[in-house]
């Protein structure tokens, strides 16, 4: 799936514990990920890595991603990134 398919802002997730809110915007020049939250110091890099891997698996090479985390496990990061990206592509529920 080419990244030109990111046509708008896509959001997924909640502010509940063990969750995260992912906001994805169409981008240029690779994948940029910003992470906020109380565990950023310890897990910020892991969250960025899982986010970038998930987007690449979807064939997305360019995107701006903002994340607010509340200590999610990897499966939750993957699920929220996928949901936000699909919404940014205009995919229906």
């Amino acid at each position, binding site marked *: 799936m080419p990244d030109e398919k990111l046509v708008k802002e896509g959001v997924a997730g*909640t502010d509940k514990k063990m969750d995260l809110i992912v906001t994805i915007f169409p981008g240029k020049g690779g994948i940029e990920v910003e992470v906020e939250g109380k565990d950023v110091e310890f897990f910020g890099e892991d969250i960025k890595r899982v986010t970038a891997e998930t987007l690449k698996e979807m064939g997305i090479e360019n995107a701006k991603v903002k994340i607010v985390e509340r200590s999610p496990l990897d*499966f939750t990061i993957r699920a929220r990134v996928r949901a936000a990206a*699909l919404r940014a592509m205009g995919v229906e529920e």
Partner: protein
Amino acid sequence: MRLRRSRLYVPGNNPSMLVNAGVYGADVLTFDLEDSVSPGEKLAARLLVGELLKEKTVDFGRSEVTVRINPLSTPYGKKDLLEIVCERLEGIYLPKTESEEDVIKLDELLTRLEEEKGLEVGRIKLFAIIETAKGVLNAYQIASASKRLEAITIGGEDLTADLGGERTPDGMTLFTARQMILLAARAAGVQALDTVYSDIKDSDGLYQEAVTVRKMGYDGKAAIHPSQIEVIHRAFTPTEEEIEYARRVIEALETAKKEGSGVAALGSKMIDRPIVKRAERILERAKAAGLLSREE
């Protein structure tokens, strides 16, 4: 068939509830993509449950892992299936089941998906939730529609609404439907599972209702809160007297077999097939509750 005394519904869009679902000892976990998920969150919940099932580090204990998908008549049902069918999924609950065609359609889709994904065909079980008057009247056809189908269950809230009634503490509104579901399940050789008890603070009411349906013949009851699991297990656990009686029935049967006698008796009472069947069921429940060793 597997023991399914308690079945906990877990909202499909809540990561912490999903991750912790395995710690409560429910016989069955049902990750829900239907009623607990709003239309605007269907995609997010589906992907969350799909990713959860692929995540091997999350432990669900000894619980059977199942998902309640959306009906196949909605835009969501088929997408749910595509995402969740995987090695770890053990069963699918189909809501609003009204006819055998609903089950056959799901079975066919599932078979195709299993083949595509290289999974063993037929391993994933099906469970039909009946929650309309039409569904109740077609219960036997539904229960007999697929080899994969292991239980039918009643969706109490929706069925009450469909009947135009109100749920009352004595359960009268659902009495006939419960009997019909049970008759259909037994005639088709599958389990009958009861609906949820909505008032999570009223554990006495839950216990009474669970005991009532157990005495009717039901195999289990659904829960919407972890605190309800222990109450349901208690209601489905036989009393000491029942266990003792069941043991004596089985002993008498064994003795009669050893002695080559065609007829077993306990005191002055003849032990026939239904009595043995009931005794076996009591002992099975006692084992599940940890009251007997597995060897007994």
